[in-house]
């Protein structure tokens, strides 16, 4: 796989999850107790043998840089290739929305030109899965296609992939149309927004789109060239979740309380790496009661925790009750509080004797650093 380079494109729509992406990009959002969303794509790429990986950021990139750093934790701190983080020349989100992500690719075209790999694998951070890209690339090579798009066939559950791209396929698994999921179909093929093509092809698509000015987003440019290209589809059958809304973020976390899914997502084609934080083991006091929960290291738990995801360095004091909730790092929950269906962002503090009840279909989000 040393002839494949990877690109993680972070120009993701954050409209429906923006309460959790105020000071960070979506890729840097905490998930499952000890990870960030981008860890999954980085690990998938590294586990598939890629050693040249670029992250194209769009605003709030400091959060990504602090987390990913030199790529050391993913084994990407290399002399040749390794990890690259690219910033748009103009770093404000608004401008990106106006200019599209093509501008960022154009500004860093020399990186694509100077890379030595034959193929490029494009992906997003928010399509969460444990995938073996070796198999995807092999499929691409065998198919003789210009572009391969990874998809998953979904039955019902519109809510889990709202507004995602959908693929229409012919009986040869060739892509004949790309649409949007509006929830009108019982069964549809959701695009996982992972594209494999030759590096030269990608450069041509970017150059021609900029030349003609017919697209602002790379995805748009690819879709417009659908008639000219042979585009085939690769079917993925594993666990997939798209973290694009608060509800999906919440449901996905809760789903992982299923140990089988846990095993698949954290191990199937290789382990998920993350930045290590050197927190000590978690302490459960004699008065604590914890059930059906994922708990990260560094916590001190004296209260009651049920069906919850507890991130690193959280403190839950005596008499507190936390149910069906997600607590991000450094959260403090004081004595005699009662939380249900709540998402507490980093460093939030709940003072004693508070009751916060959200709803399963609409969890209550407490923003970063808030003291309530």
């Amino acid at each position, binding site marked *: 796989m040393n002839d494949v380079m990877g690109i993680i494109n972070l120009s993701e729509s954050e409209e429906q999850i923006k309460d959790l992406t105020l000071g960070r990009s979506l890729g840097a959002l905490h998930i499952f107790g000890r990870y960030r969303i981008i860890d999954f794509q980085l690990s998938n790429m590294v586990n598939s043998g890629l050693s040249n990986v670029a992250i194209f950021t769009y605003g709030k990139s400091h959060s990504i840089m602090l987390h990913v750093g030199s790529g050391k934790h993913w084994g990407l701190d290399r002399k040749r290739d390794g990890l690259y983080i690219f910033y748009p020349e103009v770093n404000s989100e608004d401008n990106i929305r106006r200019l599209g992500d093509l501008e960022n690719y154009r500004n860093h075209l020399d990186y694509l030109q100077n890379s030595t790999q034959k193929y490029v694998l494009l992906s997003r951070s928010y399509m969460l899965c444990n995938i073996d890209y070796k198999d995807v690339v092999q499929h691409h090579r065998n198919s003789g296609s210009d572009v391969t798009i990874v998809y998953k066939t979904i039955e019902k559950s519109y809510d889990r992939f709202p507004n995602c791209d959908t693929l229409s396929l012919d009986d040869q698994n060739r892509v004949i149309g790309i649409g949007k999921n509006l929830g009108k179909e019982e069964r549809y093929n959701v695009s996982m927004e992972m594209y494999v093509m030759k590096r030269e092809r990608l450069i041509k698509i970017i150059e021609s789109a900029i030349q003609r000015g017919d697209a602002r987003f790379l995805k748009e440019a690819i879709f417009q060239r659908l008639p000219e290209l042979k585009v085939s589809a690769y079917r993925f059958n594993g666990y997939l979740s798209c973290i694009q809304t608060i509800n999906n973020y919440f449901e996905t976390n809760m789903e992982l309380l299923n140990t089988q899914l846990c095993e698949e997502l954290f191990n199937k084609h290789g382990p998920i790496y993350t930045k290590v934080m*050197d927190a*000590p083991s978690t302490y459960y006091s004699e008065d604590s009661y914890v059930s059906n929960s994922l708990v990260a290291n560094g916590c001190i738990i004296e209260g009651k925790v049920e069906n919850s995801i507890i991130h690193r360095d959280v403190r839950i004091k005596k008499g507190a009750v936390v149910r069906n909730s997600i607590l991000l790092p450094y959260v403090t929950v004081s004595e005699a509080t009662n939380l249900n269906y709540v998402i507490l962002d980093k460093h939030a503090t709940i003072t004693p004797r508070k009751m916060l009840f959200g709803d399963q279909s609409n969890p209550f989000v407490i923003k970063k650093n808030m003291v309530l």
Partner: protein
Amino acid sequence: MKMQKKEIVAMILAGGQGSRLREITDKIAKPAVPFGGKFRIIDFTLSNCSNSEIDTVGILTQYQPLELNSHIGIGSSWDLDRNFGGVKILPPYFDKEGGRFYMGTANAIFENMNFIDAYNPNYVLILSGDHIYKMDYQKMLDTHKEKNADLTISVIEVPWDEASRFGLLSADETDMIYEFQEKPDEPKSNLASMGIYIFSWPVLRACLIEDHYSEDSSSDFGKDIIPKMVEGHHKVYAYRFSGYWRDVGTVESLWESNMDLLGLDNELNLHDKSWRNYSVNPISPPQYISPFGRVEGSIVNEGCVIEGHVIKSVISTDVHVGRNSVVQNTIVMPNTNIEDDVQIDYAIILSDITVKSGTVVKGTRDHIAVYPSEGGENHE
């Protein structure tokens, strides 16, 4: 190109066989013994070095210790992956006549003089690899410099009735040491040496060479080098330390020191973010407590799945505790699978094993069971 140098080099004596740790040290060197859920014993000393901004550390071992080697790696877990300096494991030196073992603690340093000289340091810090404590060596070095000492020994007050187990120091009001007794029957002091020494390197270097050519020496710091320096005209000072400090040389002291972590206000306070205790972090998901699991007064590390009942215990990385199993007053070492219906009390369960369903392991507070043990007397 100018010669680079380091102000201070730390040397960790980690060669003890640890035979009083019974089966625990059958396959791993004592410094590599798991501790406190996510650490190994030597992590405390290495983290002290890192947090004290001492970035050049030699670890003196007797064997080529595979597990210790792979634990240390290139030292990046302790921020000690440096091109000049960093951490290095130093097995006994090979010369043209073949290898040889270190004779005593001082001999081990003597044999590695080249390593130290390569950094041209002003000071050398001698440490032991099997103590559990947090200490800022820079403060000790500051005292050493202020007093313009040749040797500074870190000391701790111990109860008088335990004093005769230690090397004891008598110091005047300026903390100048005028007498040293190695494990005396009748202690004249309750200031115990912690086995932490800062030497001015030129002084130690000269003493080591002299010691090497003296015939009746056992080449040991406690028995030879230090008493001689105290008796001679060297400036030897005490540096008073107070706080948590334990030697974990026996199964029972290892067990107790682990149990000391089970409390909110334990003296070691591993949750202190300004003094992180570093170790190799496992690549494992968070711990999962199932609907059947129950954890009380215990610490649990990443990668564990708890479906049974855990009481007053220390559960290390990647341990599984099955349904209806009860683990109490116990240390479970990493990557061990305790199946369903197992009863464990007052025990240390070794790493990488499966404890079969139905097993009962029972120790007592005074005799902690080690499982599996060679004799097999502890379990039915």
